């Protein structure tokens, strides 16, 4: 599965990317990749209005806020495990 982080590169989306990576690492998921999308046009194409946003594949998990590591872990456990 692919986790997408959407945001123009400000401190908020960097934090979200770090949280997502930490969540994946703590659960020891090897086949989950985290990708950061910086391009505003692409972000809009995906139908996201508020950055930072986090997507699991095509599903928007959260936007306009920074979910904590624990919250992301919860989603990961629901979807992957």
């Amino acid at each position, binding site marked *: 599965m692919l986790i997408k982080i959407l*945001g*123009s*590169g*400000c401190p*908020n989306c960097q934090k979200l990317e770090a949280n997502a990576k930490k969540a994946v690492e703590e659960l020891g998921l090897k086949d989950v990749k985290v990708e950061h999308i910086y391009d*505003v*046009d692409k*972000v*809009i194409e995906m*139908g*996201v*209005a*508020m*950055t*930072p946003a986090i997507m699991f594949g095509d599903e*928007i998990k959260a*936007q*306009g806020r920074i979910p904590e590591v624990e919250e992301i872990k919860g989603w990961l456990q629901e979807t992957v495990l």
Partner: protein
Amino acid sequence: MKRIAFGIILIILILGVLVSYEWYGAFKKSKLIEKGIFPKEPFPIQPNTPWWQIPFLTLLQYLTKAWFCLGMAFLIAGAIETFIPKELIIKHLGKRSPKAYFIAAFGGPLLSVCSCSVIPLFAAIKKRGAGLGPAITFLLATPAINPAAIILTFSLISWKFAIGRIILALSAAIITGAILEAIWTTEEEKKGILSQLKVEYQEKPLNLKDDLKEWVTNVWDFVKKIFPLVLLGIFIIGIVKIFLTSQVISKYLGQGFWQTALASILGVVMYTPTLVEIPFVRELLVLGMGTGPALAFLLTGPALSLPSMLGVSRVINWKMVLNYAVIMWISGIIGGLIFAHWVPQIKLI
């Protein structure tokens, strides 16, 4: 709904405390002045003050005057961030309708988004949501009338300026958005149904302990982000003050049409960090700036700046950017002149 209601009550309570504190202070001061006692400035700047002390004294003056109000403003900004769900506002910006202009104007300021997410949100409203007009309205109204700025205007300048700012900034943002929409949106785009903003609103139940904790975190985030900039801004104002004399200010920025036009264009090009426009205008008012130019600057200053226009020109054609800058400049002049007509003079205590 309980959570939002709790948030609104909290905000009104803080506002109530702030307004009564400010008005009680002003009332006490005017009583003293009636008796012939003039309250002493704790950090006075006199003609014989060494020039290098002026920025520091200016900073101290503002800290003693504004600490309470700034604190309350941060508490309110944090409460809005915590309790007013952004999704609820953005959901209404997903469709083309005249209503969208008003939501963009009134709701935009409540979103209190950080500056790096303003442009993505602008692009989203334009391309997938309500279209160019409301997107421009959102872009211009959001920084100009954010709650903290209005509160500080009320406290440091006067309630007349705060009210004038709200009414004129909202009108200017809506009119500019509507004109841009009329000029630049083609018939096809108007018909096209692009609305795809995937914004879901999920109601969160009220959980007093967690919510209050989140509130404190949000307030602290605002303080960390904004307070250093405000301090730096006021310090720079103190430096600028060394070089400005009241002759220069009343000549170029006193009451009048050309002075208003100059103040308005200064606001368009200059970058003023959020909240710093208020002490800046206050200092200029003390030195003899007219009320018209002052309001014109408050209308265009926070809404527009060269860096923000460069950012937006990545999303829309630069001709449109130039176009809205010119319209805002003209709205600034008109707004300034209207305000000068109603409030020709102001006393700052």
